[in-house]
């Protein structure tokens, strides 16, 4: 009974600071970074590429992810279209920023796998409007963050946070001179983003029109990235995720070259 008050006080002190309104931009971004995005996940993704004339190209990809400590492993296989079926990509996304990610690819028609050495993440992912830096976590120390505003996106409250790279290297790495991120206040998900591209006067708009809670994890089951210039849409990518499951029995063996070369 004696300990009730101190315990209570300690509880109050630890719980109270968690009040959202007092967080700094940096702190918010830290929480975004630390957010649980699930482990041992399996999903089917349909990637639809839409050009400025509204022509569509669709690809279906099956993807597996597994955390290894702080690092992330991902292996994906093309299911469709037929001419690229079983093409696979294996990625080790290292938490340590100074360490380049490892990526291997397997082209069934070639019959062998290759390691891809590509040091910047500004390149497009699979020809889509997403680039690699969009798919991986950022080095928070490389940015100056600032809360611009609080708004609502699809009736949910968000912080509007500006992220400006501190050094040229980061701009070269990601391909963006500036970003504005819309972070949901309830689950620290980045639901919208605007990125100013380094070259050619382009601006990219990321949106998550559909967000679901699956196996206790918040997942964007529909995500779009639109590249615009002078208010005109140059290209748009839609990602739709199906059959998203977490905590699947995935062995480390799944994330190996041997498995990559087997295809689906």
């Amino acid at each position: 009974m004696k300990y009730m008050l101190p315990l209570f006080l300690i509880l109050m002190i630890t719980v109270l600071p968690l009040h959202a309104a007092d967080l700094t931009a940096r702190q918010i971004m830290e929480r975004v970074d630390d957010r649980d995005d699930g482990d041992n996940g399996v999903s089917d993704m349909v990637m639809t590429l839409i050009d400025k004339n509204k022509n569509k190209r669709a690809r279906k990809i099956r993807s597996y992810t597994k955390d290894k400590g702080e690092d992330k492993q991902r292996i994906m296989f093309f299911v469709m279209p037929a001419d690229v079926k079983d093409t696979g990509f294996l990625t080790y996304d290292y938490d340590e920023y100074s360490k380049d990610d490892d990526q291997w690819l397997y082209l069934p028609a070639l019959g062998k796998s290759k390691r891809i050495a590509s040091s910047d993440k500004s390149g497009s992912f699979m020809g889509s409007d997403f680039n690699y830096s969009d798919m991986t976590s950022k080095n928070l120390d490389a940015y100056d963050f600032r809360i611009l505003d609080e708004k609502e996106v699809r009736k949910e409250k968000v912080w509007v946070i500006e992220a400006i790279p501190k050094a040229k290297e980061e701009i070269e790495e990601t391909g963006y001179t500036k970003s504005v991120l819309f972070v949901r206040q309830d689950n620290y998900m980045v639901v919208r983003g605007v990125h100013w591209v380094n070259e050619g006067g382009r601006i990219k708009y990321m949106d998550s029109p559909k967000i679901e809670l699956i196996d206790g994890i918040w997942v964007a089951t529909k995500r779009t990235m639109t590249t615009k210039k002078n208010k005109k849409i140059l290209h748009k990518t839609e990602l739709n995720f199906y059959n998203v499951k977490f905590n699947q029995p995935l062995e480390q063996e799944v994330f190996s070259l041997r498995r990559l070369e087997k295809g689906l």
Partner: protein
Amino acid sequence: MIIRFRQKIENGFGRFAHLIYRNHWKVLFLVLILVAGFASQLPKLTMDTSTEGFLHPDDPAMIAYDSFRNQFGRDGVLVVAVTAPDVFDLSFLTKLKQLHEELRTNVPYLDDITSLINARNTRGEESTLVVEDLLEHWPEDAHALAAVKQRAMNNPFYQNLLLSEDGTTTVIVIKTDVYSSIGIDKEEVMDGFDDEAFESDATEGQRKFITDEENNELVIATHQIAERFNGLDFKVRIGGGPEVMYMLKQTMQTNMKRFIRLALATIAIALFIMFQRISGVILPLLVVILSLLSTLSVMAMAGIAFKLPTQILPSFLMAVGVGASVHVLAIFFSHLQKGSSKEESIAYAMSHSGLAIVMTSLTTAAGLASFAGAEVAPISDLGILASSGVLLSLLFTIVLLPALLSVIPLKAKSGDNAEKRHLRMDKIVIGIANFSTSRHKLILAVSGIIVVIGLLGVAQVRFSHEPYKWMPESMSVRQAGDFLDQKMGGASMVEVVVDTGKENGLYEPHIIKGLEHLKYEIEQINDGPLTIGKTLSVADIIKETNRALNENQDAFYTVPENRDLIAQEFLLFENSGSDDLEDFVDSQFSKARFTIKMPWTDSIYLDKLSVDLKKRFHQQLGNDVEITVTGINALLGRTMAATIFSMTQSYLIAVIVITIMMIILLGGLRIGLISMIPNLTPIILTVGVMGWLNLPMDLFTILIGSIAIGLAVDDTIHFMHNFRRYHLETGDVADAVRRTLLTSGRAMLVTSIVLCIGFFIYMFSILTNLFNFGLLTGFAIAMALLADFFLAPALMMQFYKQGKPAVEE
């Protein structure tokens, strides 16, 4: 009957003149209002000096070009070439990087910039596929630098595109925006998520392409930056389509402005010398300026943009305007000198020359109106505008001129000087008249020989269009362009689009292999003036990727046989360098772009090349694919071909129309036809001179014909009209010729001298096309005068000697 009809009209003009005299203030006021009305429309005038402005918007070649630009962006690239003793030197590369960065940040409307700094380098290193920019990892030591050099020099893609064969010149390629940014306000961040933007694209219709002003801005910015970097071991040269376009436009505009002013000045001086009066200078020039002003207003009202060929309009109106007003004034002053009152002199001048002026104006207008049917937009515009201009000039001459003469205090010049000059000129003119009539057979024979020589010259005329070469070699744009042509295989592009018509059509090995084969075939073309520097297509990318995937072995620098492998290699490429891919293929992989880079070439060869290319491509790729040859240079080639055809057509129609009018106006079939001889001779001789002197018949000189027609016809009508009148009175040819030359002849002489000087002044221009323009137009004017001073009288002697001197009614 015709005589009386003519007399009635002449009397009518006399009465009209009297009417104006008595109401001169009212007339002046009305004219002022009219002019003000016209002038108010002037601000609406737009300018369009693009090559695209040459074709009608619904011309299939234009539609194909627009479709190409919408898909692949702008075809002309701005090229910044840097020369050094050794490109692969660390300090040089450092400076190059700085230049690259500066251009990237500070050149407006920039879509993409490529140089050795960020050039794609795909290679295989054992089991690793390396995809990076060539200078991603800045070489730290000599060893790393040597490796970079080796990679660059051995990369077939860089050769003649980013790097010269001897490794001393490297190029920064700037691709500009294809669309205009005018009228676009900055996007609101939240609005960007509005997907309606997609829908509105369809309803918005065609986006405007990059404008001249925007092109100017970016070229100027590039120059400013390049100048700062230019140095001894870092020689910077700027070339490429946007540069040449800019320079050409600038020089054309400054030259035209300068020379129009010079021409006006020299004409003013010449007029003064002729008339020895200020009024003799101001009045004709006023008529010219007002008709020019009103014609430009008509352009503005009709929404016709001022284009490159339309730049000839001021010179044309000057020629025509001076001609008509000088005729009136010459007769007016002559009469005034003889002692008549001002009112009488005005009436006499108007009755004497009014009909003739109307006839010349109508004939010229009708002749030029035949241009309106031309396929080439600016030429059909010119037809409409020039004929409108002539009629407006007529209006000012017969209304404003008498009114002003009524107002201005004018007296006969006193003193012997005026008398002496008058008599001197009379003597000359009479001398010519006598010579022409007495030696008419000689004249006809000599003229016949000259015409034959002229026709031989005409047969030698070569069609050509090289606006690039209008600029003198001393200009930096020429030096840069010639350097690029020599060292880098040129900076001028022809584009071929291969449309397989189905999604993933480009996955087919035979298509990619076909493109590969075409590369070898086309790069071999070396046909005199036509040489190909380099070709680029998606086949290069596939081969590069294939080699990189196979440990960089050269044996694998080939196109795979396996369709799936091609599909997967495309996927791989999309995954790493898809920015480059969109330059070569559409997103459906159904269309491939094949770029042909070459030195600046005469457009006359490009039309033939286009036809040849289509044949070759179909041969290699079959008939299931659709082949389109486009790009701005191919467009010029097509324009050239279209123009030659339509101009020839237009001139023929003009000749027929004018012949008919001459027959009607002169009141007789035979005399009408005969009058065409002094009409056509100056033109034949002028074109003949072009042939003999090897002056090119290009899109600029071809318009000289319009001025030549205008003036040759004017002179002939004046001669014939007056000759008929005098001949009817006496039946004596020699006497009629003498009297004709004493009246209208004097005016024709004055006009021709004045205009010759005004046009010969263009020969001081540095631009060869303006030099040729001045030379040829002046020559045509001189020939028109000689034809009507010598040939026409001789023809009349011949015509009337044969049989009845009676007039055909």
